[in-house]
């Protein structure tokens, strides 16, 4: 029981602790949907747009807000918490017990992953109820793309944590990665509306590929294997990097 990578007591504890972080909860769970509501309040965004193949801007922004929660949780919140745990000797304290500190790492990933998925679900539900955005027409493909994106985001967070000696550095690297990640996800300009060359490049980033895969699944197609492949490749690469560079103390 105690050598396991996942420890239920640690997981329960970390879940409870995240509930006590109003800042993280707001940015991961509420902020993306809030942004969706603000965009949806602009009347022209609710009209079909010929440049979007007849879709409305709000339709295109639902996948973007789904990704936003993953980006905040995986890149901003988790690396800072985990780096703080290392900096303040919490991982080390756990090393003296029969439970391995990897239990804390896995609990953090599960808790932030779950929060990001809850945020995605909230965005989908609010999009459907408030703005009549259709739910993904290929739900299974959507779920696969979403899960792969969660894994890639958490792996990216783990690399940031591995490379950051202090919480401050984790915050700085997190912010430096945060804006490009949001750009690739299409926060400023949905990937479908990007110029061809730019879209081609962005599709090779984790969140650009995720954005395209989610759009395809939302429209009822199976997400392109190329996009899913990009996500898997990033996850494998980033996980290997995190495993290579991560320090417990």
């Amino acid at each position, binding site marked *: 029981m105690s050598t396991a990578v996942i420890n239920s*007591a*640690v997981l329960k504890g970390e879940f*409870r602790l995240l509930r006590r*972080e109003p800042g993280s909860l707001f940015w991961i769970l509420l902020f993306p949907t809030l942004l969706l509501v603000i965009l949806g309040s602009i009347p022209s965004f609710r009209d079909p747009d010929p440049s979007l193949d007849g879709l409305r801007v709000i339709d295109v922004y639902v996948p973007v807000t789904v990704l936003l929660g993953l980006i905040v949780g995986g890149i901003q919140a988790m690396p800072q918490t985990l780096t703080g745990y290392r900096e*303040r000797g*919490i991982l080390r*304290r756990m090393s*003296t*017990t029969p439970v391995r500190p990897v239990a804390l790492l896995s609990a953090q990933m599960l808790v932030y992953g779950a929060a990001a998925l809850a945020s995605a679900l909230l965005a989908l539900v609010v999009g459907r109820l408030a703005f009549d955005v259709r739910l993904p027409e290929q739900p299974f493909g959507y779920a696969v793309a979403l899960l792969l994106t969660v894994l890639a985001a958490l792996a990216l967070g783990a690399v940031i944590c591995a490379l950051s000696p202090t919480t401050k550095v984790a915050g700085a690297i997190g912010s430096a990665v945060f804006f490009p990640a949001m750009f690739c996800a299409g926060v400023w300009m949905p990937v479908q509306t990007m110029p061809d060359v730019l879209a081609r490049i962005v599709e090779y980033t984790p969140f650009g590929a995720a954005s395209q895969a989610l759009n395809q699944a939302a429209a009822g197609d199976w997400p392109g294997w190329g996009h899913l492949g990009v996500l898997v490749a990033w996850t494998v690469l980033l996980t290997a990097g995190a495993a290579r560079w991560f320090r417990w103390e």
Partner: protein
Amino acid sequence: MRSPRARRDADAMPVIEVTDLRKSYAGRPVVDGVSFIVEEGEIFGVLGPNGAGKTTTVECVEGLRVPDAGRVRVTGLDPVTEDEATRRVLGAQLQESELQARLTVREALELYAAFYPRPLDWRPLAERLGLTAKLTTRFAKLSGGQKQRLFIALALIGNPRIVVLDELTTGLDPRARRDTWELIEDIRANGVTVLLVTHFMEEAQRLCDRIAVIDKGRIAALDTPAGLIRRSAGATVISFTPSAPLDDRDLNALPALASIEHKDGRITLSGTDETVNAVITLLARCHITAHQLRVTDATLDDAFLDLTKEAAA
């Protein structure tokens, strides 16, 4: 005095064995051939100046560091290859560590209890450590003393055979320090072996059955507190103001003399009981009266300074 030797024969297995332990950081040896044995039920002190290698030594015992060379056994287990089994019998309080800021005392106790197969009931433990009133307080809101007591509780919650306490009373006020000492004696009375790292002489003298003095990565001495004082060169200090000047040659010829100091006409000598007798004989022979004659035993402080000075030379 208990007899560790008799216990050892009966048990046939010391709880901690460290043999020729070596550990370097960046080519600089921090622990350079340390050996000692801790018997069951002992309070064993590891004493030494800052940077002497005390913490690295106990971290090898705790399995937090892998030794470069040498052998470490905890109840016969190798802390590196049998880490999980070791951690079930050994509870640790680390010199610098924290808990999650928003975790409450009760949650911390419950969480750490869940890590062990046969934990203690946290309620009486919290009671014994005076934490009952703080159970719903978050870690970040605890005082230094309360945090230390919580860490002692967490070191004990797994019902260990051994606890390692590293610089436990650093930063505590004198009252809290004395309470903590009573607690450590209490822990031992319950049959738990205590490995205590400290740089407080008073603490070591009061608590420890035996002390290993570590200096520059080596054991400078290993004995009972009384034994360390006795064996140090200046174990007895004699001071007096002579009624007439004394010839330095006579003083230097005193047996077992460790040091001489002249200050404002007062002479302070350190040595052994033999030195005391010789001084009195000398004074009588020279018809000199010793005003305000004081003979005192050295403290562990003196012994420690003497021992670590020797190692430095």
